[in-house]
């Protein structure tokens, strides 16, 4: 099992529900300000769709200062995750502006033409693949090294999956999305190899584009075979999927070479949970137990009830507890309190499981020792 290595030495209960987050976290306001200071040019334009006034009056904020600001933010958020009590922490993706853009900037073969609409006045600098893709620099190794150097808990590394990188780009070169996704999967595999070499033991592939088109599970399955090739057994590989029609991917995901499937389900009030009841769920389930897009903080009792919904699908040994999705769009205090309540609720549920006070519908039949 890959999960026991994440049980803290001082864990208070016999049962262990691994608590973690999906990845992104609200950036400190000073960090956003630092980005603006760094990016603004003489005309007042920034890389995002904003224009600032009187740029000539702004102080010079060079590359070194900006790198330092990102390191500082990453350290603070890592510690914030630890303070909330999470078992596996992330740096809140402080270095990443957007989940596709960040990687596309680091992959040869991509170019940027400008922002395109996602909805309303929300835009995304959708990149174009204009040449064969290649990995010529590290993507996340430095991020991991920085985070793990300050973390006293194990660090999880979220990485945008090749299908999402392919689907959310303009593909000018490859025959189809499948071909591009498989090429990108080999690059993700190289990156994971280096992360593992640097000490990473928990990697999460983010594929929000999965479950949005019928039949895309076949492409993701193939891409994951490339990603997981030669990754040591003690490295935990998770797959995060959100806001899709899960009946399009289940039970096919059970064939994927992953340890854990991380799902947004709280947002839909667990309406899709029954999708995973039959056939038997044989992976670990990372269950979303707080909503990432509602600014109201769920109570500990409410989260306990949400956690217990997970036992309809898997026994406690296979349950990880997590928010629905990245928390970056929430106010930071709200995001923190959600994590704190999530951990408290998980520890409460563990204690009740230890005491035999919770019934587990998905419990495996075991032979009695009597």
């Amino acid at each position, binding site marked *: 099992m890959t999960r026991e290595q994440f049980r803290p030495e001082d864990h208070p209960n016999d049962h262990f529900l691994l608590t973690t987050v999906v990845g992104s976290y609200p950036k400190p306001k000073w960090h956003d300000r630092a980005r603006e200071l760094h990016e603004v040019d003489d005309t007042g334009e920034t890389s995002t*769709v*904003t*224009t600032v006034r009187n740029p000539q009056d702004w102080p010079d904020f060079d590359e070194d200062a900006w790198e330092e600001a990102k390191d500082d933010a990453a350290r603070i958020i890592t510690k914030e995750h630890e303070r909330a009590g999470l078992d596996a922490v992330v740096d809140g993706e402080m270095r990443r502006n957007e989940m596709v853009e960040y990687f596309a900037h680091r992959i040869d073969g991509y170019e940027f*033409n*400008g*922002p*395109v*609409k*996602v*909805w*309303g*006045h*929300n*835009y995304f600098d*959708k990149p*174009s693949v204009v040449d064969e893709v290649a990995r010529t620099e590290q993507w996340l190794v430095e991020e991991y090294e920085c985070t793990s150097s300050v973390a006293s808990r194990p660090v999880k590394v979220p990485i945008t999956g090749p299908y999402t990188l392919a*689907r*959310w780009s*303009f*593909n*000018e070169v490859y025959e189809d999305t499948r071909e591009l996704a498989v090429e990108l999967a080999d690059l993700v595999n190289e990156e994971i190899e280096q992360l593992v070499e640097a000490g990473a033991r928990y990697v999460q592939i983010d594929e929000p*584009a999965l479950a*949005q*088109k019928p039949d895309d599970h076949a492409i993701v399955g193939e891409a994951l075979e490339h990603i997981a090739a030669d990754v040591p057994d003690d490295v935990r590989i998770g797959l995060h999927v959100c806001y899709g029609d899960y009946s399009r991917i289940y039970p096919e995901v059970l064939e994927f070479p992953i340890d854990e499937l991380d799902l947004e389900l709280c947002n839909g009030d667990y309406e899709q949970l029954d999708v995973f009841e039959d056939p038997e769920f044989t992976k670990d389930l990372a269950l979303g137990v707080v909503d990432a897009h509602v600014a109201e903080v769920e109570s500990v009792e409410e989260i306990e009830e949400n956690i217990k919904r997970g036992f309809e699908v898997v026994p406690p040994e296979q349950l990880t507890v997590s928010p629905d999705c990245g928390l970056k769009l929430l106010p930071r205090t709200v995001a923190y309190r959600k994590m704190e309540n999530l951990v408290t609720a998980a520890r409460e549920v563990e204690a009740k499981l230890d005491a035999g006070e919770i019934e587990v519908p998905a419990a495996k039949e075991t032979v009695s020792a009597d």
Partner: protein
Amino acid sequence: MTELVATTPGLCPLPDWAKADLADLKGHQKHDLVSGDEGEEITAVYDDVREELVDLQQSAGLDRVVEGQARWDDMLAHPLAVHDEVETRGIVRYYDNNNFYRNPVVKGELDADGDVAAELEAAAPLTDDRQAVLPGPYSLADLATDEHYGDDDEFLGAVADFLAGEAGAFPDVETLFLLEPSLVTSPPDADADGLPGVGPERASEAVDAVAGAVDADVVIHGYWGVFEERTHAFLLDTDADALGYDLVSDHEGAAYLVQEYGTNDDLALALVDGQNTKLESAETVAERVEWFQEQTPVSGYETIHATPNTELFYLPTNRFEEKLSVLAEGARLAETQEVKA
């Protein structure tokens, strides 16, 4: 000799300056989007955008010029999203794209309110080569939720009457493009994805009601594939002057339809990809026209509307502008080649 008319299905991307200005003025959330009663400041930005988009199309050499539909925050669902009897709810996926619109829920009688006509009035002084754009009734009904009429067939009829009323109030236009992607992606009679209980005959009657409301050339444009055979046959029976064929998504399927079932003297050919930054050349555009003419046993089309396959808001502005020029140049080249042939 065939006339090549270079045009687009509209819904252009906002210029980057307007993306920033409008985000600042309106905000980023659901309730910040266009409601139909924008204040002066926002209206002024849209006026400037309209002028810029018209100018871009004219400079590129297009033969028909659209208003640009810059206000259509909810894409093809816009005409309902701003209606008084419609409530906009959660954000829902726009076809199979990574784009979202507010779910328009119809709560009362759909009388025409002149929202689209007012945009065209505003554009009228800017150009004489006016082309109107509307969602087709089938697609608009498919994108919306009905909580008033209670029956798919009746709802479709009401949406068609609403659009016909809207079209009837238009200033003079040369062409009306009715965008009907749902007729391709969720064809009538197929399954519960579309409008259950509405067959292709009823769907084409609804389209016909809108087509008959304007004194202009009407093009029914389907994309992300081509019309199903039965739908295609019924659409040919309507008063529309031309059907649109998406050669970018399925050129062979398009050629097959016309080989087997024929088409009108006029048609629209989608020759440029509205969802990929890869830039076609004018030669490619002309070759695609030539290829289609060779494939289909029609002695000579009167008019070919040369167009991108989809709306254009998917593109960054640089490629959007370049594609307009390519289309116009390609259309001219195709005409020249026909003369030589």
